[in-house]
């Protein structure tokens, strides 16, 4: 049901953790839904120097979280914003069809983190 790649990423997730002095933090989900994804970013010269996550949720929630952090890390903010749901799914070698909606949550958290960063720097 899950691709080999999904299981691999899920079992050995990269970038797990909190960035204590994060420049931006974004969260999606709720305890009621049973999925909560938090993404932390550290920005340097418009580049996402570090991206980390903390996720409570299912296999899709965790594997998309780690994949989004990996895809975003090292990219400029504009590049990161261009990442699509499809990019995440493709990087995971596909997701079961009935999970595609959920696959967007991690990306939304990233976007929220970037918004948070922009909100702060706009001050």
């Amino acid at each position: 049901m899950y691709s080999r790649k999904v299981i691999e990423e899920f079992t050995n997730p990269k970038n797990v953790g909190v960035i204590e002095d994060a420049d931006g933090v974004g969260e999606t989900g709720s305890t009621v839904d049973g999925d909560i994804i938090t993404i932390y970013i550290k920005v340097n010269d418009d580049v996402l120097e570090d991206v980390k996550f903390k996720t409570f949720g299912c296999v899709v929630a965790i594997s998309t979280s780690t994949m989004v952090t990996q895809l975003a890390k090292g990219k400029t903010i504009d590049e990161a914003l261009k990442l699509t749901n499809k990019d995440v799914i493709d990087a995971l070698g596909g997701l079961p069809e009935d999970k595609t909606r959920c696959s967007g949550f991690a990306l939304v958290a990233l976007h929220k983190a970037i918004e948070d960063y922009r909100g702060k720097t706009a001050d």
Partner: protein
Amino acid sequence: MKRIYMDHSATTPVDPLVVDSMLPYFTEKFGNASSLHSFGQEASEALSTARQQLAESIGAKTDEIIFTSGGTESDNLAIRGVLEKKNSGKGKDQHIITSLIEHPAVLSTCSFLESIGYDVTYVPVDSEGILDMDEFENSIQDNTSIISIMHANNEIGTIQPIREISKIAKENDIYLHTDAVQTFGKIPVNVDDLGVDMLAISSHKIHGPKGAGALYVREGTDLEPFIFGGGHEQGLRPGTENIPGIVGLGKAASLAKERLGNDPEHMLKLRDSLISKIFDSIEDVQLNGHSEKRLPNNVNLSFKYAEGESLQMLLDVKGIAVSTASACSSKSKKESHVLTSIGVDTDYIHGTIRISLGKDNTMEEIDYVAQSLKESVDKLREMSAISKC
């Protein structure tokens, strides 16, 4: 990697003795039991033997056994068979009583029946999953035709007081059906002791083959078929009989009966050891279901801060097969209706797994599973954004 199977409530491996009993019926004794010739007679004798084996294992008469394709079909036949029986005179002005925590085979049947005009009461259960007897008794109406209450629940393993329920059913002259799919082979199942009119069994849950099941129908219980065709199985279940499957079910049933003195005790020991190991090593965990009135092979646990599917998958990677109650779907996370009905906390409900033991599991496996479970829960909690909330 050695794999450890602890999902016996989902399905069981077929016992090699059962496979052996089935094999001749594929290629040699392959006749159709309705045929008069020697090939047909071999098949029909096999059918009789299986019927006898099954009947004996639950204390029934051979005429009271209707073979079906599985537990789902048996449940459908019991409920719809009673309601749709001709000359009931009541038509759709009939009432069904069931519980909130039945298997979908019963619940979906009831909601279909509701949708076409029947009246259904879903009786609630307490926080350990036991039927609310007062509400049950109060729900009885003049037009109640059937009561369908499962013997034990497939998720949390709670065993219902069927005998008490039967007393009330009898006082009110209402048919009682019980879904014994999870109990048969784990606790004694005797139709007279239970006092039921109908009882559903599924072969693949008792080390028999998939694709076979049975409905016990007490003599004098008036049923209509709900699948139509030839007049097989006393007119209640048409279609060429699945002889190898039924032979396997018969064999599995008699083995289950034989082993009732040993297997459940073994599973109980493993179960209690596993539970205590988990509670000793992991925090923020709860056991769902009843502490005593519980299947000897059922462990249903909820962990705070660790999601069920993820937990199950981490265990799977370690070669351990268990099941999760909450399944992801496209629209929203579907919560188990059973866990909701017993009022499991939101903090816990998404972190639920069911470990269901089998006769061949060992204490060594239990140790490995307890250890792996601790590691996996720790790992997920480490990763979880809400573990410190």
